[in-house]
């Protein structure tokens, strides 16, 4: 009732409702005792006196009496309904029904219905769950609902959103790590080096980074970039560029590129950084959105994408 600024509104609504019902009852009672003239043969037919479109009149023929009892029945129904359900101002009604309560109870009923199914899989190891075709199907449906918006319907990811089926992991591919990623979220940040490094330095670095995974590169620039890498990048990506799963620093020696492998893309990554502290591009935490059962199913499904087949 937050829409109403004063409690008096509740009283006003209740009074208005009750007066309307009483007025209906009085009207019915009076009309029920009223007599109308039935036209004798040869006489004109009595009308209500209402005329539409110039010549459309309304006959004043009696209704069947059971019809009147139906009207009374609606009044009784209204009173019983108002006593049981909220309707009279702020009166909650004998059943104490609320729309949010009805929603909660429906959710509760549904959860109770599917709980045994999740309980069965929660007791299993995620790797065992991943081998179960029924669980895979459930996991796929959950994935399409909760994950596919970013990672794609086929879990293949896209620019900035990791591919989950290639066996390469930013934070580790063990079921436990996947579960942590899903429930706690991840926020990998590559700081921008555009201010710290000159344009020439960045160009050298780009060639060195490309050479790490065997992409075509300028050998001379790559040689120049190597010491720059040790100074600026090795802290996170490791001296050999193999990355660090503790902090989600990608392995730069494989041919998997989260933000693209072209010179332009790598240049942008180095000078402007990736991800941001505001968390716009981070993987959100799901522990408040999904229950343990769903997270377990998703963990098994995602793990299975690159481990079962």
């Amino acid at each position, binding site marked *: 009732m937050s829409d109403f600024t004063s409690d008096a509104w509740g009283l006003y609504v209740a009074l208005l409702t009750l007066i309307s019902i009483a007025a209906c009852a009085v009207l019915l009672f009076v009309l029920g005792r009223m007599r109308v003239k039935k036209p004798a043969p040869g006489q004109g037919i009595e009308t209500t006196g209402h005329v539409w479109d110039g010549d459309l009149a309304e006959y004043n023929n009696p209704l069947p009496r059971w019809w009147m009892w139906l009207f009374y029945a609606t009044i009784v129904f209204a009173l019983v309904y108002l006593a049981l359900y909220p309707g009279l101002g702020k009166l909650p009604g004998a059943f104490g029904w609320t729309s949010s309560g009805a929603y909660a109870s429906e959710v509760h009923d549904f959860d109770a219905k599917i709980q045994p199914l999740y309980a069965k899989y929660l007791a299993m190891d995620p790797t065992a769950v991943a081998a179960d075709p029924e669980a895979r199907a459930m996991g796929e449906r959950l994935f399409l609902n909760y994950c596919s918006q970013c990672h794609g319907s086929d879990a*293949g990811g896209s620019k900035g959103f990791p591919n989950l089926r290639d066996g390469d992991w930013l934070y580790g591919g063990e079921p436990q790590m996947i579960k942590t990623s899903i429930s706690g979220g991840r926020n990998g940040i590559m700081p921008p080096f555009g201010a710290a490094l000159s344009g020439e330095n960045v160009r050298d670095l780009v060639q060195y980074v490309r050479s790490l995974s065997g992409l075509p590169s300028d050998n001379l620039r790559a040689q120049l970039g190597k010491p720059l890498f040790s100074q600026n990048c090795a802290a996170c990506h490791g001296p050999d560029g193999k990355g660090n799963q503790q902090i989600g620093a990608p392995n730069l020696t494989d041919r998997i590129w989260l933000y693209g492998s072209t010179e332009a893309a790598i240049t942008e990554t180095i000078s402007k950084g990736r991800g941001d502290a505001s968390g716009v591009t981070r993987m959100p935490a799901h522990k408040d959105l999904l229950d343990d059962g769903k997270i377990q199913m998703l963990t098994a499904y995602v793990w299975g994408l690159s481990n079962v087949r």
Partner: protein
Amino acid sequence: MNAPVILEDRETRPTAVISAAARARRVIPIQPTSEEVALYEIRKTIHPRAVHGWFAGWRWTLVFLTQAVFYGVPWLTWNGRQAVLFDLGARKFYLFGGVFWPQDVIYLSVLLIISALSLFLFTAIAGRLWCGYACPQTVYTEIFMWIERKIEGDRLARVRLDAAPLTLDKFVIKALKHTAWFAVALWTGYTFVGYFTPIRDLGVAAITWQLGPWELFWILFYGIATYGNAGWLREQVCKYMCPYARFQSVMFDKDTLVITYDRARGEPRGGRSKAVDPRAQGLGDCVDCNICVQVCPTGIDIRKGLQYECIGCAACIDGCDQVMDKMGYPKGLIRYTTENALAQGLTPRAMWKRVFRLRTLLYGAGLMVITGVAAASLAMRNPLKVDIIRDRGALARETIPGQIENVYRLQVMNTEERARSYTISAAGLPGLALVGVEQPIELKAESTKLFALRLQAQLEPPGGAAPAAGPHKIELTVQAVDDDKVVRHEQSTFIIPR
């Protein structure tokens, strides 16, 4: 042969036995008297008299026909399942060889349009044909009245029984009638539910008291509604509740055949001996026997002209024709005729020719066109349904340098009652490859399946021009392995990023 006609019904005013001479002297003063009635009137039970004849025969034919279909169809089987079953839970309607999915709801709309146009056509030709012969309210009332007549007797016996004080005999007769009514009503409810849940299983569940709550509810609801409408409410449904009864008048015109009392021929009405010439007595052909009023299921007097209560059942025509026969007068004092035919004195031939007028021809043409189109569309219905949705979150991705991948969700629906294999192919860009799905795909009978589909294009295809950046129209084809005709082509776009 000179004996006066004595009608069987003692309630009929005994004017028919008064000699013609005495009759001539009688003067019935007509004084307008106005009667006061309550605004809500208590219904007076109508006890229609049994009637036989051409139109009653037609009504009974339609009663048998419609009820044979209604009660019989759920028991038919087709390929090991119920032939006609509306499986609401599974959202599938089975109609003999066809399975209708929610996607086929257009056929339901078409069916409703066909029904509406038929209603317009029949009503324009001969008024409330539907009401008088085929409407369930009429049909069940006819069945219930037949039971009533078998147990309580015809009109007069029923009037007497109702007026009599409650005795054991009366109680037994009434109880018998209501039991019989209720049995028919329950069977009707059971049959109705049998269209939505397999009727044989429903029978087993009913016998073993294992009906589901909704099954039980609908059997009782439909049963009690039948019992109430056909046993108790009867003509009140048509008078007070039915919307069609009210809007049908807009489909009438002056060439619509309606049940009409031929006032010019019948008036002045009056009783007379069969022997006398009515013209010499200054009388019309109406002997004022009131049979037309007694047989009327809505309790009106057709001689007052067309009234909204008239459901067009033609019972008064049958009743009057019999009397005319007995009197030796030509039939048709009450008959199907048109306003124009009466006013212009058309011959029956000229009147019937006017059945073919612009209004009916248009209704008929519309009906034929939409029925033809619906039948053709049904015959060519594609049992395969395909929907393709591009992934919205990711427009495109580069898998290995120079290779662009787009992701789609492909929903394939096999609406047939047999398993099928399909191949999927994509075209629209040179070297467009389809990965991520094992071909051919297998779908069980009446199932849908979702595939995460990946299409790959080369930025620099060998021996081809490089595709421009931006969206490209592509076409996906899903083709049944064993039937060339079962195929769907769906359009989508493939995006090459800048």
